[in-house]
């Protein structure tokens, strides 16, 4: 559904690999969002910087110790003092480091939580158009992984500062004791550059290839498990295993490459460290001997210790850049959500919907998802309180859009929609949704028990009430024989139930909410004759004394409707009772022949097939304009 990617309410949905905001903006915004955790984070940073200073000094004590014992006439008490100083420094560093960890963990977790909460709240209230254009998995990762990634971004900034300080302090110390040693230490730089470049290019590429290959394995396993009953039914287990084996081998190939590369990195760094020690020893040694020694043995030793402390932060710092970039990219994606303004909101003067308001009026409504392509064109009709009206038409006629507009998932560009005599845009969303219920074509059930799914209609309902209701609509019988009855846990959105069961539960849920106005997008999945009659009976109970608009797919529904509205390409072209319209022999007759006539027990007549063929070839030329969520088809194991 590429058309849902541009401008307007869907601006939120732009998927970006690269940051759209300048780096400085992202950094500034991050600090703004730190909010009440800012102070704690500053305190933590102070702790770690102090700790760094202490720990960069302690090798100095060791070197003094060596020189001290080499000085003739030294006393043990002096040595003891140095020892104590060393311990004090170490313990102070340890305490400060621990305080840093302690303080930062609290602040960081709190920050992540508040970010998660804000993002989640924003998303739950975001325009439906946004959600329709997004995979739920992607949206979820905004809440979970992006906020986590930003949280570690904070730590990276602080670590960066402390590692940089350590690097500078270490280098200064080396420089002070001997510029030659400091310069010798620079021999490690090319190796660090090599490692970073290797990691950034080949490493990155191999890692991606390995992840992709592993993704294929995962995808294949997922598919094979979902289709295991088919593999069994057709005796094809060996073949699926062979297919997997091929992908598995490929993943191994890339995984091996990547691991060897990583394994190369470790000895390279460690061997470099030791080689640098040899180099410093040699340079330091040559400065310590001769007639004019520049260095003491203690200082040579200091050099060998410092070189190790030089290599590690240098490597660390150069690796941090990628991580930091990743967390700023997360911030960028989060800001898209946090700074977006939903287009459908309560107007400042919004009042609750009057309890007496009932009936629906469309006044000259025009609506387009994308500018220039009107999905509804000047539509006017009214539904009297308590009336049941059916909407029919080909795919793309605008049926689903009407349901969405009544629920105020979108606002029309022209005209207005009224409940009773109140304009939808003048009432609060909460009161609107309390009054109107929508049953979607594929009703969504939560991964919870049957009982809780029904209770979603009204949180205060008792178990007894729910059971009584289910008895009333004939759902009790099948719920009772589910593995754990009402406590049966539904998984994967109810994929462990049959289509008929899902529909019955959705009907029960809505009946419990007892809305004054009902919008029903009838399920297109056909049930067997017996189940069909049960669902039909339950639906009829739902319609009684309720203002109802049904996007009809069942013959019985249109036959029972007090009026049928016929839509074509966004326009209302005919309305009347089923019988009236049929006698009229116009557009409705054609639609009826195409979609409903064959639902009877009669033989299909040549005439009907011909009409259906003509009608369908007409509609195939138009693109469907109603929004569809991508990838909502759930694979089922049953």
């Amino acid at each position: 559904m590429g058309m849902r990617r541009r401008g307007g309410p869907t601006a939120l949905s732009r998927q970006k690999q690269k940051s759209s905001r300048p780096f400085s903006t992202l950094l500034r915004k991050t600090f703004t969002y730190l909010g009440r955790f800012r102070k704690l984070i500053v305190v933590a940073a102070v702790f770690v910087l102090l700790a760094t200073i202490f720990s960069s000094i302690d090798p100095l004590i060791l070197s003094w110790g060596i020189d001290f014992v080499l000085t003739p006439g030294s006393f043990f008490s002096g040595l003891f003092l140095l020892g104590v100083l060393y311990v004090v420094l170490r313990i102070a560093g340890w305490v400060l480091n621990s305080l840093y960890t302690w303080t930062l963990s609290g602040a960081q977790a709190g920050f992540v939580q508040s970010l998660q909460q804000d993002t989640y709240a924003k998303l739950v209230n975001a325009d439906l158009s946004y959600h329709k254009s997004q995979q739920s998995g992607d949206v979820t990762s905004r809440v979970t992984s992006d906020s986590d990634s930003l949280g570690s971004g904070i730590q990276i900034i602080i670590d960066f500062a402390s590692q940089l300080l350590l690097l500078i302090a270490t280098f200064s110390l080396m420089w002070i004791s001997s510029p030659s040693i400091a310069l010798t230490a620079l021999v490690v730089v090319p190796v660090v550059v090599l490692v970073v470049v290797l990691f950034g290019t080949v490493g990155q590429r191999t890692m991606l290839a390995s992840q992709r290959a592993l993704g294929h394995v995962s995808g294949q396993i997922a598919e094979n498990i979902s289709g295991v009953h088919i593999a069994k039914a057709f005796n094809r287990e060996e073949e699926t295993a062979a297919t997997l084996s091929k992908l598995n081998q490929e993943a191994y190939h890339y995984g091996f490459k990547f691991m060897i590369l990583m394994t190369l990195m470790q000895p390279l760094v460690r061997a470099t460290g030791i080689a640098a020690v040899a180099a410093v020893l040699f340079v330091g040694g040559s400065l310590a001997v001769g007639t004019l020694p520049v260095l003491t043995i203690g200082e040579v030793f200091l050099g060998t210790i410092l070189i190790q402390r030089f290599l590690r932060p240098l490597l660390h710092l150069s690796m941090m850049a990628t991580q930091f970039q990743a967390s700023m990219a997360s911030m960028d994606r989060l800001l898209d959500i946090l700074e977006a303004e939903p287009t459908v909101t309560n107007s400042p003067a919004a009042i609750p919907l009057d309890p007496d308001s009932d009936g629906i009026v469309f006044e000259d409504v025009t609506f387009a998802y994308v500018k220039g392509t009107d999905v509804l064109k000047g539509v006017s009709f009214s539904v009297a309180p308590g009336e049941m009206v059916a909407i029919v038409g080909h795919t793309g006629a605008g049926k689903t859009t009407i349901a969405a507009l009544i629920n105020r998932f979108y606002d029309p560009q022209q005209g207005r929609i009224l409940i009773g005599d109140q304009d939808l845009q003048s009432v609060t969303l909460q009161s609107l949704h309390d009054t109107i219920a929508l049953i979607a074509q594929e009703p969504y059930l939560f991964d919870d028990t049957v009982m809780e799914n029904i209770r979603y209609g009204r949180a205060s309902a008792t178990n007894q009430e729910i059971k009584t209701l289910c008895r009333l609509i004939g759902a009790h019988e099948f719920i009772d024989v589910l593995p754990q009855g009402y406590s049966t846990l539904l998984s994967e959105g109810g994929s462990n139930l049959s289509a008929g069961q899902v529909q019955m539960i959705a009907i029960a849920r809505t009946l419990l909410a007892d809305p004054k106005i009902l919008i029903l997008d009838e399920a297109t999945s056909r049930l067997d004759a017996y189940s069909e009659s049960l669902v039909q009976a339950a639906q009829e109970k739902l319609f009684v004394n309720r203002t109802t608009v049904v996007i009809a797919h069942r013959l019985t529904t249109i036959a029972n409707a007090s009026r049928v509205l016929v839509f074509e390409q966004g326009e209302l072209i005919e309305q009347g009772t089923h019988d009236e319209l049929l006698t009229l022999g116009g557009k409705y007759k054609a639609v009826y022949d195409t979609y409903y006539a064959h639902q009877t027990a009669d033989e299909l007549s040549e005439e009907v097939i011909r009409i259906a063929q003509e009608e369908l070839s007409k509609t195939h030329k138009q693109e469907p304009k109603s929004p569809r969520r991508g990838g909502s088809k759930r694979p089922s194991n049953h």
Partner: protein
Amino acid sequence: MTQPRYKSATRYQLSALGRYKGLTVLAVGLALFAALLTVLPGWFMGDATDALQFAIDNGLGLTPTFVYYCLVILGVAGALFVTILAVGYSFAIITLRWERDARQEFFEIIQENSMSFHDQVDSKQLLAVAMQDVRWVRFSLNPALRNIITSLGSLVITSIFLAMIDWILGLLMLVGAPLYLFFAYRYAKKVEPVRRARSVQNEIITGISQEVFRGIEVVRAFGTEEYEENKFEEASKEYQRLQTREARLASFYIPHLIMTGITFIALLYVAYYVLLGAYQVSTLVRVLGLLASFDAFSFMLPRFLLVIRGANINAQRIVELLGWKDPLQEPGHSAAVDWSKDIIFRNVDFRYTSNDGENSTYALRKLNFIIPGGSRVALIGGPGGGKSTILKLLLRLYDPTKGKILIGGVNLRGVHTRDVRAAVGLVEQDIFLFRRSVKENIAFGCVGACEEEIIEAAQKAQAHEFIEKLPQGYDTIIGERGMTLSGGQRQRLAIARTLVQNPRLLLLDDSVSAIDAQTEFFLRKALDEVMRGRTSITVTQRLRTLLESDLIIIVDKGRLVSIGTHEELLESSEHYRRIFERLPGAFRHVKQPTTSGGAS
């Protein structure tokens, strides 16, 4: 296929090492050698200092001995590079090959398990085990075990070297090192449950969000945004608490203090003897150098201990799934069946095993009926009434809990599933298509089906025409993320798939999505084709099919309600009449079954 059984999680975890015994011994040996190499520079630093001091004391320049030791350290660096590389290489071979094969083995075993297994275990969980758990077990060997061998090795070697210098230092290490390890282990043990709880909580948060975003329309329609926000807040606050706790456990890490203590005592002790003149300053340098190399692994040790401990739980999960006992047992030798004979259900009870492994309510109860060979049977019943269970039993995806199913007098239990499934064809309700080409999906019905067969089947199934119109015709990729097909098209593909298989008994769940008259017309023709010349059992929505069936079976709540032809049932069954009356346009057939003509 042989089914390897793992006696315990630990054995599973270590099975990779057992598979490549020689290489493992070599790798461990090399790892210990690498540990030695990491310690050696500290040792040679002492010698170099000796040489340096000798040069200084005698007013010499750089002595060959000093240069020699510098070169030795350089040589150690080179050797270390090669050794660690070799260790990494061997471990990569051992563990990555194991990971590849373990994943394959896991999949093949669970695939062989009967459907009872797949009902009990969520497919998402199986995928997670195959990918994540197997990976964590591998992590526990490489890098965790590999690094721990090197770390512990260097700890022991350092201690030995220190003891060689002075037995008091050896004693110090003998006391200090276990203390160090004890506290490192204690930390790992403390942090482990918190970490696990955190990752569970993370899954909970992900679950909550994903669900709400998937069902956002329901949330909006019932106006429960605030309720959902509160629910999320509770979960994310708990996550915050656990995250904080886990991170805070790393503060005030005792082993650091112990290290400081050891260094302090060693420094004072050796320096004191240097002052006394018993030791050279080189000894002090050597001791400090040795201790410095030991300092480097600080947090690594507990982190890897954590991975090893954690992976044992992953291994446990895998071993449990692999050890699942299948209630469906294959017969020693498969009985021959004449599938054109009568199908008899005799006192059949069936119940599914629920998620917690407990038996649940009956899906079928005392089911008795006879289906004459070659007849067309329509099966109808309330939602969840047992229709699809009957079909699954006939495919022998399960065996009845009690009673038996006889085909021409042969008990189905005595027939190998392979033979049952070769003879029984299935067109299910939610048509599952693989992410492959149309051709391959149709050919799924028969190994080695050739092009002509495929096209012929597609033509008979009324699918040829629309397939030709697809972008790449028969080579178009369909299924998940492939070309989207309508319900009617999917069903016709499934019919073609079954036609290629040419089964003796056909099971059909004919409950497609709302379709237009044209598609309906095609489908009826396709169904007619596929039912010809074999026994068929159809779960149907089509009233027409009811009229044309030889036999109608009505089941509800797992029990047989009525059985007979349309006319018989209209006469005899109040139940049937009620259902039929409620259906659109059916009433004419109730009064005078022969009428035809205009609608409504």
